[in-house]
């Protein structure tokens, strides 16, 4: 009772796909032979009833009608450009220019009737349209589109697409598309009734060579009543793929771990400066990250308003602005609050905690408590396949960005004058002061640098997390964990700490689950700190003692 109607619906999808294909293939002939398009007024009327079942029936009827207008109507439906007037029952297609043309004839409509409504699409209709346009795209002149269509057909595994596939295979010249088409054909054969055992085993071998998750899904669909030889072949192929995938999944976990580690590194590296180098327990560090994310939001809003063409560069523009803005806020906090509290750890902790609450509430008052949308530039969207690894561009760029920030910071500390002064003050404040270094000024700059780095971390984190007033809170504990684990006062320690925590977390997660994994990690870190209270890379010298 709970799962009815599926088969009939699948049937509709197949019919539709085939019909459309047939319609397009026969289109020139039909146009020549009859000189007039077939009547499609009945299905068009069904688009105007605002019911999904009717829309689906109309799609089917359109598909088998062989009308030249069918493909255009289906495309319009997929893009949400198909409209109807509830009053006049007219069906119209909106053109790219914003005008309307009559769906049946294609002639432009001077004035669209008032109260136009879009023909609604749900997942069912969307799937039907997708399958239909997948079959249509098999004969597309663009090889990339044909490749995509072959993939779609393979995932859908519609038996009815077989004749279209055979036709496409016969004509195909591109080797890559041809192998994709062969694979799609084999996937359909495996589950199809009435295929000979030899054909089926050959198909299983073709699919087994593909070796990915889609192939696994196909192989699992071998009918239960298949011959023993077929089943054995399928099981062998499944075992092979599963072994292969198990090896890849280790690589995948490492990749996820590195990606999480780079996020931790970004969040913690600013803290490594303020906490590690200056010894200030800065509870407002997370809010600096949050301010950086909001800076990104403001920059994007300005770009959207004044120069949308620059949108793809919005993050690059936001990086220096966020650095300067949060850096200045950091210097302001240092000059007005923290400098009076040096050497009083508990008071610093409470004061910075108070500052973090003030900053959160200030942002909440200015921007509201709800999340703000920071868009992803096109070069950060999407993913690519590396073997069986699916790598998303967003994560890849964040890893690269984290490494760049790390190298830049290391270079600043090693190679610049301010870096030298910072290290001098860290090692021995009084000696540095007597050498003529303005330790006050160095403190302010160091705190500003740490805050500024937190700000640019915010730019990157705005891509993967909520831009809300609470953004910083979720990173502050992790950041302290990384810095303490890695060893206070050592940037390399922060890098190794962040990466090892990230990878350990992702290795534990598949077995222990996200909740237990995190707890297990905390226990491991506590035990580790018991053994090595100074963390992975202990800094030698007086910095810690004082």
């Amino acid at each position: 009772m709970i799962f009815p109607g599926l088969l009939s619906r699948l049937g509709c999808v197949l019919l539709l796909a085939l019909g459309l294909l047939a319609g397009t293939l026969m289109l020139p002939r039909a146009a020549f032979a009859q000189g007039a398009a077939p009547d499609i007024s009945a299905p068009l009327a069904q688009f105007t009833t605002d019911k999904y079942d009717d829309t689906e029936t109309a799609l089917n009827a359109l598909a088998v009608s062989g009308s030249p207008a069918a493909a255009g109507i289906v495309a319009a439906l997929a893009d949400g450009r198909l409209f109807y007037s509830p009053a006049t029952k007219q069906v119209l297609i909106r053109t790219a220019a914003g005008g309307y043309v009559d769906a049946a004839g294609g002639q432009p409509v001077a004035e669209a009737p008032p109260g136009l409504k879009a023909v609604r699409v749900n997942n069912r209709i969307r799937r039907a349209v997708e399958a239909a346009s997948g079959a249509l795209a098999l004969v597309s002149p663009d090889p990339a589109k044909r490749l995509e269509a072959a993939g779609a057909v393979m995932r859908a595994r519609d038996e009815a697409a077989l004749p279209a596939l055979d036709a496409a295979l016969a004509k195909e010249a591109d080797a890559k598309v041809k192998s994709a088409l062969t694979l799609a054909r084999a996937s359909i054969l495996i589950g199809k009734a009435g295929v000979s055992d030899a054909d089926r085993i050959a198909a299983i071998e073709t699919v087994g060579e593909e070796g990915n998750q889609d192939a696994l899904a196909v192989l699992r669909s071998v009918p239960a009543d298949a011959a023993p030889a077929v089943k054995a072949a399928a099981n062998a192929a499944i075992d092979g793929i599963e072994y292969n995938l198990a090896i890849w999944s280790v690589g995948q976990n490492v990749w996820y771990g590195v990606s999480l580690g780079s996020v931790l590194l970004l969040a913690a590296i600013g803290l490594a400066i303020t906490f590690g180098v200056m010894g200030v327990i800065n509870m407002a560090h997370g809010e600096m990250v949050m301010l950086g994310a909001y800076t990104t939001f403001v920059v994007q809003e300005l770009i959207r308003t004044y120069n949308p063409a620059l949108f793809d560069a919005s993050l690059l523009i936001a990086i220096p602005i966020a650095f300067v803005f949060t850096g200045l806020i950091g210097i302001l906090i240092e000059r007005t609050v923290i400098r009076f509290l040096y050497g009083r750890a508990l008071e610093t902790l409470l004061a910075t905690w108070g500052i973090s609450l003030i900053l959160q509430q200030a942002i909440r008052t200015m921007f509201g408590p709800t999340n703000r949308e920071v868009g992803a530039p096109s070069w950060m969207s999407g993913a690519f396949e590396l073997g069986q690894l699916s790598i998303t561009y967003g994560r890849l760029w964040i890893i690269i960005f984290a490494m760049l920030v790390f190298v830049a910071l290391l270079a600043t500390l090693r190679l610049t004058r301010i870096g030298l002064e910072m290290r001098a003050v860290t090692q021995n404040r009084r000696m540095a002061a007597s050498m003529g270094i303005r330790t006050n000024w160095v403190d302010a700059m160091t705190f500003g640098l740490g805050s500024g780095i937190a700000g640019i971390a915010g730019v990157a984190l705005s891509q993967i997390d909520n831009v809300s007033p609470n953004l910083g809170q979720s990173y502050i504990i992790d950041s302290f964990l990384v810095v303490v684990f890695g060893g206070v006062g050592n940037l390399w320690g922060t890098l190794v700490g962040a990466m090892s925590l990230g990878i350990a977390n992702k290795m534990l997660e598949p077995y222990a689950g996200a909740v237990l994994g995190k707890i297990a990690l905390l226990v491991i870190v506590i035990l580790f700190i018991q053994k090595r209270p100074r963390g992975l890379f202990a800094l030698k010298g007086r910095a810690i003692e004082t």
Partner: protein
Amino acid sequence: MSNLFSNARRMAGRAVAGAAALAIAGVAVPAAAQETIKVGVLHSLSGTMAISETTLKDTVLFMIDQQNAAGGVLGKKLTPVVVDPASNWPLFAEKARELLAKEKVAVVFGCWTSVSRKSVLPVFKELNGILFYPVQYEGEESERNVFYTGAAPNQQAIPAVDYLAENEGVKRWVLAGTDYVYPRTTNKILEAYLKSKGVAAEDIMINYTPFGHSDWQTIVADIKKFGSAGKKTAVVSTINGDANVPFYKELGNQGIKATDIPVVAFSVGEEELAGIDTKPLVGHLAAWNYFQSVDVPENADFIKKWRGYIKNDKRVTNDPMEATVIGFNMWVKAVEKAGTTDPDAVIPALIGVSVPNLSGGFSTMMPNHHITKPVLIGEIKDDGQFDIVEQTPGLIVAEEWSPYLEGSKDLIADWRAPMNCGNFNVKTGKCGAQ
């Protein structure tokens, strides 16, 4: 250390709440000159839950404003008393006590999370107050002093699962949730329900994540893997609050489309979608009892007035807001019926009260202190609104005690005399026996 933190938080929370209350009292001075009725608002205005609860505070203030413009209740003006429990569960109980004992409010609208509701329950029982709770929740509760205007599991979760099974042919289920009482109870009910419909245990995957979980790579990859077993798979998401944005972003990143693996969410509404680029999410679903896109005159009128009041013509409306509106109107009607704001008279008067909801029908307060609602299934559109793809033909009565759970299937709630019991066991014939 944690003690220090929570104290600091609490103090900051108080300062903010005080300021808010002062500001509102200042506005309401002219009305307060004559005799007034005080209405308590107990929603977090700071901390993690502020993202959701601030809107509900504004909704109650809007309803009070409207009611006063229409002449108040029993000839008296309503004055709001707003406090800020700052997303801090023990503070909810303190603030509830302040509202009932010190401010002597006639009614309280408040709470979002179940844990905050559980924390104020003893206070409302002890001081005999009335609480209207406007959020969908896990059920398994019925109290004399609480009126639940959000959905019980059978008014949201079960119809959503039915829709997916019937319309999308889903045969394999991922139940993903945040690790706390609402998702755990809801998933327990859903698991029992699915099994009763013949779904095998290996076709159900249950996954919990901590609050605010932000790194979804592994879990989304697992879902993808689970979904490639050759059967149509769907995700039923009880992921709450902030964790949703990175979850949906990761789905989009890994290329999981609604046509492959649809996700139906019970905690994602118009407000939550405001922070996401919804283009990759088109077709994913949500089940609620109200959507902003409901196309009836009552809703259009409400949205217009609300935007006028809040002076922002882009502000969205959502399901818990509708539940707050229904609760408020029910309370007004019951007070007028009882002729007094005395809880002992208003509580029995509330049962059977019927007010228009915003989806074009009427909602009625049932003897189990829950209301009747239609269930709507919506698909996310690219503009962050929902396209309503299914609506139950009639209203659904809440099952506060789920018939699918061992511990509660024999329990019923009826707050009318002579039963007057929130957990009556029909097998043993005793009240309070689970």
